[in-house]
């Protein structure tokens, strides 16, 4: 069964006669454990779709089914609860808290889970180890390279073992080596059963996924 099913989803930005439709009657399916690439031209609505999936933004019409159950997100808090249970985000610009250490940035993901404090610590250290940034744990993001920041962001995304990771151009700000490293990690997670949706306009990255969902403008 599809893990996520979007039916006749529409989304426009702005109001009244200034409204710009971005997604119109879009149908979208995502199966559990799948690795999916969303591609399309710039401005075609890739980020918009990803934000709708992650309940960061809300559709104007259409149905959102998660595990066959209809979801109605109305407020920021609905989205927060939903993400805390099922979804992690990775964005192009990392979205790290500059005044938190690498350790704290990763720990952040576990604060709302029922994990016990000493287990949290263990889990965070494990993930940092796995992403080879354990020695950076007491550093602050401004002291890191782009690749290290992205690995911190990935660590934060995976530490609570979500069902799905949503990645919006995760390699957009990285060089070739760091890009490969990031993709390797994502593929590894996929192999472990985590569902992954990557927004990208790089055909090479799309080719590494199980399936490609192409958005055409309008």
């Amino acid at each position: 069964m599809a893990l996520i099913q979007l039916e006749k989803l529409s989304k426009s930005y702005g109001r009244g006669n200034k409204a710009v439709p971005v997604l119109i009657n879009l149908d979208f399916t995502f199966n559990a454990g799948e690795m999916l690439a969303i591609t399309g031209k710039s401005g075609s609505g890739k980020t918009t779709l990803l934000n709708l999936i992650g309940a960061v933004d809300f559709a104007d019409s259409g149905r959102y089914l998660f595990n066959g159950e209809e979801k109605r997100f109305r407020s920021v808090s609905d989205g927060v609860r939903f993400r805390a249970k099922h979804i992690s985000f990775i964005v192009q610009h990392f979205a790290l808290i500059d005044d938190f250490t690498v350790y704290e940035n990763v720990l952040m993901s576990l604060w709302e889970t029922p994990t016990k404090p000493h287990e949290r610590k263990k889990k965070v250290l494990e993930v940092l180890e796995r992403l080879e940034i354990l020695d950076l744990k007491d550093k602050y993001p401004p002291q890191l390279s782009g690749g290290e920041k992205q690995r911190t962001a990935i660590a934060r995304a995976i530490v609570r073992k979500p069902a799905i990771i949503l990645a919006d151009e995760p390699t957009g700000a990285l060089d070739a080596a760091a890009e490969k490293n990031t993709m390797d990690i994502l593929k590894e997670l996929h192999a472990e059963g985590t569902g992954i949706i990557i927004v990208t306009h790089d055909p090479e990255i799309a080719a590494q996924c199980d399936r490609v969902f192409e958005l055409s403008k309008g």
Partner: protein
Amino acid sequence: MSFILRNIRRMSFAHWKSNLLIFIEMAVCTAIFFIMLHNYTLAQHTYDQKLSGTVRAQRVAINLQDVTKFGELLPGSTLYDVAQKVQRDILESPDWVAYETFSLTSIPYSRDGFPTEIPEEFMEEFGYSDFCDTLLRGMLLYSPTYMTQNGLRVSEGRNFEDADFEEIDGPSPVIIGSELSPYLNVGDVITSSNTMDGINFFDRQAVVIGILEKDSFTVVQEGDVDINKTFVLPAAFADQGGSEFRLQALLSGGVIVPHDKNLDIQDKLNQITAKYGFYPFSIQPVNMNEVIDATIVSQKNLVLLSVLAILTSSLAILSVGTVLLRRTRKDTPNICIFLMSGIPLGKIMTSILIDLLFWGSLALLPSLMLSWTEYRAFLIPMWQLLLFHYGALLITYIPIIPTLGRINLDYNIRAGGE
């Protein structure tokens, strides 16, 4: 460490300038409010002490214009009969309340006549120590009106009644000043002794019926008279209850309190004296000036201080609120990252509130220290200060709520890279 604590620690470093500003503003504002409150409390105290009750309207003391005429007022003479008619008209006039002035007396005191030893400071030293150990201060009254008209109340026992001023057998009633209360209780009987000014006080007894309220005083032409160490008695105790004494106490220094403040008292008195062909009176305001000044000054101060306090606190609330709002807006990218990571808005708001209360509470310290170093005690009601302080802080927090409630995550996440 939970999110809330970590976030507060983060904000303390990241927003230290804002926090310092909040601290200083709240400290200054609360200190001003504290000083205002303190002055208010003091003024209130003065007011309670000096101006309690509504009885102290403008009042005048009356006297014969020619004081030598008193010599002619001998009981039995025609003039004496006329004077008694004048006395009755003055006492019974519907235009005012009139009462006799008090007279002071000294009560010879022998140590064995009292249940408890009374310390030296309550004694009057007249050098009569060969007659008795020493003398106590006594104040003689002619009617209970004196007590009510001067706002003199008892904190224990009862006040004087009309019956206390009639001919009575047995001990005379006495009301004692509050400072005497450690030595005498209601119901105690004191026995005077020896002869004073030709009066044989030997075995004369008085029973304590009441204790005056703390800080009692009475006003005469010359100013306030402290009566906290005084024994207040009906004049009969010192053989001065006779009608000639009562007459004298009214016509020479008796007090008139008009019902209508604009009443021409002199004119009314002239009508009475003209009616009986009696000597004219002069009137003189009883010295209430001090008291009236005190009221005006403290009322002015209170208004001024209140206006100042409202002004400063409004300014402080406005500026602390602005600082806090700007600080929170600047922190929006981080708040969005928290929301993306699944941390609920409620917890984020709580951490901001606790942070504010923490810095705000620090701002209380200067005022508390001021109170302690200045007065060695927290003189003012603490709850008022705390209510004001935390009330102001909570008001500054209010704009945060809709601002965070309206946050557009999508928009902020897209803007994240820039």
